[in-house]
């Protein structure tokens, strides 16, 4: 029960709350102290004080104070609510849910607690809990459409499509006057309902609903696309064809529309003429359309391919389109096309060079040389000597051309000449210093050549100058995944495990941020009314870590931890020496580097402390800057020394391995490294599971049999004393993999 306060102090208590909400933390604390002076054990005030301290970044003190308040007054909903908020702001959502549930039990009428709890539940994908919360919220305020939509979302995500639709229909029935056609929320709600009907598999009903209720929805593209899709599914081919034609009128550069159109027209995949006619129609109608001209190259063969490819190539090379090769190289999977395309380019080149007089031809010549240079540099048609020759000719023709120089650098890279590649790309960069694309490429090539410092300086030419912490801080703020990953890999090659781990952990942390990013949208999207987009975000977030950005850095990290476990390093915990010494950085040099890094870190810390001390906390600007600094958590291990000093590399690897195996089970690399980790941790059943998944994903991978043998050898001596169930699982599992 809340302890009673005198009216003066009750007023003060309200002031504390107001100050907290207005972010006037100093005043809030002062008022709280005044109350506590007279009532030192007033739990609600203690909780509010903890809340303010938490907002000021004093997390630990805040938690201990909030806990103390709770022990004094277990029956105060304020204490539990604050406890929940503390957990929430520190991203421990499970504990936050527990605290909120206690708070709600004590104060069932509180809409704020209920709303906060609901958001936590959906964030944690507690669908049942979310349904329950949204049901209560709807009953409390049924006049708000949002509350109906929210309950429908809850049922929808839970998998109860019928209930979801019912809720939306029930709301529709309560509306007496027809909503305006420009009522955006209504338009989206109808389309949302349509998507639910479609998900039930009742396409006929979905189409009917679309053609009646959703007919005038404001998202025209969605209505048109859904209609075409439903008509196709229902076999109403003539109408479907018309619908796809309408879509192509809107956007003739959408590949799927052509595919669907030719399908509903009943044109067989090998009917080159029939297919070609459809594309030709749109190519004639839309002179600027690329898809209608390029896509036929996918299915045409023989002479038809030859003449179509010639026309396309001539058109693109005349225009000097640099992406011509990139747009055609997928055709190399067909061995005859792989021969025809470069032949056509050579033919084009010869003809153009003959007609040298024409002023316009130099563009075409350059483009053709560039095409051939890329052709011979591409892995399926590689001849690096020839590639070098063509690119040299192109450069001779147009020495300032960035694209040509870029390809020259790429050829060096393919030759394994990383230093030359790095220099060549930097030369390309210097030809167009205002273009960030070429700047990024130059930095990437520097990283491939293990020039971390230089690469960061290159990146620094485009990062925001005013970001505290310099280019690296900006790149982390802006979540520049490729740089962080490549930077880590370069450090790893240099034997600087600390920095490498640092980068991989940063990538993983950014994924945590991306997962948290959805938090605010659980309420925001309800107000915006864009429910379909919200659902699509929720489903994407559920698979977030299957992204190659994650798996690449995670695989790097797990492999590094495995290496660290194989060759444990000295007590200084730095730069696990790989012993091979092939990268030219010997141990003494590394030690020196570490010492220097340590010193620098200490210096940075000292300077930061001094800077903070100099700031006048009462000045608005300073306060703001300080807050910004507070939110930007101080990094007490900027060089990853502590990460590299771990005594349990395999345990640390789990932070990366678990999501890898959960979200990318078909990734053979993930299963292979998973096996290695579990073998070393003597978790044989888990190792077996990785082995079986690897075998299922790619049974021809040579590593699978090798690993199976190792697992059998490792477990053989243990079989006698093993739990019979475990023994059987191992034996049958191994037999399945090795019997193949």
């Amino acid at each position, binding site marked *: 029960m809340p302890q009673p306060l005198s009216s003066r102090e009750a007023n003060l208590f309200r002031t504390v709350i107001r100050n907290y909400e207005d972010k006037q933390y100093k005043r809030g604390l002062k008022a709280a102290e005044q109350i506590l002076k007279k009532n030192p054990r007033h739990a609600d005030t203690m909780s509010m004080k903890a809340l303010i301290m938490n907002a000021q970044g004093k997390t630990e003190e805040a938690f201990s104070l909030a806990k103390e308040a709770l022990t004094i007054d277990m029956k105060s909903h304020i204490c539990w609510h604050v406890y929940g908020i503390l957990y929430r702001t520190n991203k421990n959502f499970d504990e936050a849910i527990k605290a909120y549930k206690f708070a709600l039990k004590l104060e069932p009428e509180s809409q704020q607690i209920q709303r906060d709890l609901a958001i936590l539940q959906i964030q944690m994908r507690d669908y049942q809990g979310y349904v329950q919360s949204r049901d209560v919220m709807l009953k409390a305020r049924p006049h708000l459409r949002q509350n109906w939509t929210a309950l429908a979302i809850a049922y929808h995500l839970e998998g109860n499509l019928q209930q979801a639709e019912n809720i939306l229909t029930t709301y529709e029935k309560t509306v007496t006057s027809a909503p305006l056609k420009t009522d955006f929320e209504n338009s989206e709600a109808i389309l949302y309902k349509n998507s639910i009907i479609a998900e039930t598999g009742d396409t006929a009903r979905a189409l009917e609903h679309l053609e009646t209720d959703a007919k005038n929805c404001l998202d025209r593209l969605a209505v048109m696309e859904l209609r075409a899709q439903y008509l196709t599914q229902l076999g109403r081919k003539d109408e479907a064809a018309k619908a796809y034609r309408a879509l192509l009128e809107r956007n003739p550069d959408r590949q799927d529309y052509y595919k669907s159109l030719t399908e509903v027209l009943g044109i067989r995949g090998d009917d080159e003429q029939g297919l070609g006619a459809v594309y030709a129609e749109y190519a004639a109608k839309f002179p600027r359309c690329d898809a209608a001209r390029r896509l036929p190259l996918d299915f045409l063969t023989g002479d038809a391919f030859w003449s179509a490819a010639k026309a396309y190539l001539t058109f693109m090379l005349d225009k000097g389109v640099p992406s011509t090769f990139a747009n055609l190289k997928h055709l190399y999977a067909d061995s005859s096309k792989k021969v025809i395309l470069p032949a056509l380019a050579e033919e084009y080149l010869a003809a153009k060079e003959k007609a040298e007089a024409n002023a316009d031809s130099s563009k075409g010549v350059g483009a053709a040389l560039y095409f051939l240079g890329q052709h011979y540099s591409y892995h399926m048609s590689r001849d690096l000597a020839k590639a070098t020759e063509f690119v040299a000719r192109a450069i001779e023709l147009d020495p300032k051309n960035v694209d040509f120089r870029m390809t020259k650098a790429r050829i060096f890279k393919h030759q394994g000449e990383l230093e030359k590649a790095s220099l060549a790309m930097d030369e390309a960069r210097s030809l167009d210093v205002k273009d960030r694309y070429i700047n990024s490429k130059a930095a990437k090539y520097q990283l491939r050549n293990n020039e971390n410092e230089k690469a960061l300086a290159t990146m620094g030419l*485009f990062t925001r100058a005013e970001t505290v912490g310099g280019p690296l801080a900006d790149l982390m703020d802006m979540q520049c*995944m490729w740089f962080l990953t490549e930077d880590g890999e370069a450090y790893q090659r240099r034997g600087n495990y600390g920095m490498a781990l640092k980068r991989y952990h940063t990538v993983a942390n950014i994924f945590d941020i991306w997962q948290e990013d959805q938090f605010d949208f659980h309420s925001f*999207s309800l107000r915006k009314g864009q429910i379909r987009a919200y659902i*699509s975000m929720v489903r994407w977030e559920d698979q977030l870590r299957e992204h190659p950005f994650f798996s690449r850095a995670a695989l790097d990290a797990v492999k590094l931890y495995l290496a660290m476990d194989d060759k444990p390093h000295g007590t200084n915990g730095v730069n696990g020496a790989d012993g091979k010494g092939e990268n030219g950085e010997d141990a003494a040099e590394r030690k020196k580097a570490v010492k220097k890094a340590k010193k620098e870190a200490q210096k940075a810390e000292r300077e930061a402390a001094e800077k903070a001390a100099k700031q006048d906390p009462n000045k608005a600007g300073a306060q703001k800057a300080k807050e910004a600094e507070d939110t930007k958590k101080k990094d007490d291990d900027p060089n990853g020394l502590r990460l590299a000093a771990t005594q349990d590399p395999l345990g640390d690897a789990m932070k990366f391995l678990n999501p890898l195996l959960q979200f990318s089970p078909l990734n053979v690399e993930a299963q292979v490294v998973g096996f290695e980790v579990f073998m070393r941790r003597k978790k044989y059943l888990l190792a077996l599971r990785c082995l079986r998944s690897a075998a299922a994903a790619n049974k021809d991978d040579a590593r699978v049999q090798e690993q199976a043998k190792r697992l059998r050898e490792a477990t053989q001596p243990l079989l006698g004393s093993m739990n019979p169930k475990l023994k059987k699982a191992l034996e049958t599992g191994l037999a399945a993999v090795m019997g193949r």
Partner: protein
Amino acid sequence: MDIRLLRPSDIPLIQHANIENLPENYFLKYYLYHALSWPQLSYVAVDASRPKKSAYDYPKIVGYVLAKMEEEPADGVQHGHITSISVMRTHRKLGIAEKLMRQSQLAMVETFGAHYVSLHVRVSNQAAIHLYRETLGFQTEKTEQKYYADGEDAFCMKLELSAIREQIREAAARDEPAGEGIDAKKASEEVSDVDGKSGAKEEPAKKEVKVKVGRGLGVGELVERVASKN
């Protein structure tokens, strides 16, 4: 090259394309804010012919337009705004930026009743200015001093969308055959209704569900968190 609507799952690679190409960058939540506020307006160009590298390959984004509606238009007129647009250097000269823009503009009018679309461009960015002015028909409204973080000025450009509005009105009239005359009339009224006023706000007789926008919504601080000064 496939031109299609943005999906939330595209965002990491859109962000990648942005930071690869441009000095004005944003964290992922800002992209989400666009994708969840105006999902109809942002488009991507995808390298659709690229063979899949793994079971978890995401479509490679070679160009994108990130667009929004102005939430509190100073002039009271509904209009769209281009937050960011870029095309990878390797995929230029294919008209991708123009195609992306046209799709976005169409949706701005259809879905949100936009009257015009605005954007900012660096005064030194000749290629982009050429595209906006010559190919797309934008006009320079004014110069904004020191708009960019590095102190460079920006041109404020603007394109009236009346041609698209006209096109939609005609299509609406065409789609409703004579037998459904009342509907056709209604449809064209709807368009002209948006024409006269900004949105449905001045229709007192009908039920109005006002959607609160922007500030105070938790995502509010994202509004206008662009590369402009401060």
